[in-house]
């Protein structure tokens, strides 16, 4: 609506306000399946940023030409194009990463985040706003993946590996391999959400108490 502020807001809202994993609880499959390490989470995030931004821009640019009744199939085609690009690039330049992620690279096409953003945002907003929205939501999602990947990798293997470096160099506790299995993923995400809820509840209570004190003071 009003120029620059709204553009900036379209970018920043993806990180906290409309955080895909914790607020909207969509795009769960890759969130759990590939977050066994920081590096996997990061590259998945990058792939999602690319696909989401490109598909948002395409959907937004074509929004006036798209008939309402067949919009979902149109979205799916517009999303599938960047996914194939990611798939082919990854296969060519990062074959090991492609092998680890396996079926989840083509599955970006049905990642609910992307179709949800097409439907809820890009289809109703101008191109530039949709671009920012894609970058923001994708960025927030990447941070989630890296954090969850970090927690699971650290507890599951005792160290976090970046490229050829590992931190800490030697695990100082007995790693719990269960963190790398599916149950570990579910429980980690569940507990993270619980902690987030506690934080939100606390801050709301504080705010309420402050407001109550302010009104009492008046």
């Amino acid at each position, binding site marked *: 609506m009003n120029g620059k502020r709204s553009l900036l807001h379209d970018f920043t809202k993806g990180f906290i306000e409309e955080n895909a994993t914790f607020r909207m609880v969509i795009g769960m499959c890759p969130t759990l399946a590939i977050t066994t390490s920081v590096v996997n989470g990061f590259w998945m995030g990058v792939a999602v940023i690319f696909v989401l931004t490109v598909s948002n821009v395409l959907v937004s640019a074509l929004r006036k030409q798209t008939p309402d009744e067949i919009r979902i199939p149109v979205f799916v085609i517009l999303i599938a194009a960047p996914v194939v690009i990611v798939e082919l690039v990854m296969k060519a330049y990062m074959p090991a990463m492609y092998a680890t992620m396996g079926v989840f690279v083509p599955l970006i096409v049905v990642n609910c985040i992307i179709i949800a953003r097409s439907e809820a945002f890009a289809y109703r907003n101008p191109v530039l706003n949709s671009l920012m929205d894609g970058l923001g939501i994708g960025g927030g999602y990447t941070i989630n993946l890296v954090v969850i990947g970090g927690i699971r990798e650290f507890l599951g293997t005792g160290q976090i590996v970046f490229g050829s470096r590992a931190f800490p160099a030697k695990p100082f506790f007995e790693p719990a391999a*269960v963190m790398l299995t599916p149950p570990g993923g579910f429980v980690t995400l*569940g507990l993270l959400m619980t902690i987030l809820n506690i934080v939100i509840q606390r801050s709301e209570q504080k705010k309420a108490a402050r407001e109550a004190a302010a009104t009492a003071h008046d």
Partner: protein
Amino acid sequence: MKLISIILGGVLTSNFIFIQYLGLCAFIGLSEQMEIAVGMATAVIFVMTFASTVVAAVEQFILIPLGLQYLRTIAYILVIAGFVQLIEMFLKKTAPALYKAMGIYLPLITTNCAVLGVAMLNVTKGYNILWSTINGTAGALGWSLAIVIFAGIRERWKFMDIPKVLKGFPLALISTGLMSLAFLGFSGLFKGVIK
């Protein structure tokens, strides 16, 4: 033997939800009421079985002869989206009662990653049309088993005193984790019996 291992594998040892993480959005989103869960489960079994067949046929008769395997993702998702639409129209005309029961779930299935996921896995494993269909059915049965069990658990939460911070998604995820731990126990089932 391969038949048994595929069916039991799909339902238990490599359950779509608990072991492979496929179709989680619908699993978490639609498991609050048993009735809805059963409706979705029926729709998934129906669509996944036939979609696996159709997609395997497309792979074998169109993509491979033309050497277009690199367009697999686009081709599959288009076929699945079109196929779901077709089923919807077909059911509306021929079986209105069935359409009423699963109509609203059908559009949701297009974006259920389990359907595309099973199609992709079938290709990776090199199954032909028949085995793809069987694998699709087995995977769908496993998915349905999971959502029905989970809906049963969630229905009981209504009468329980749950801390506010755990309500909804956090508790759902933690319970799924515990169920998944139980399903992980099946993982050695075939060792020694089948290769």
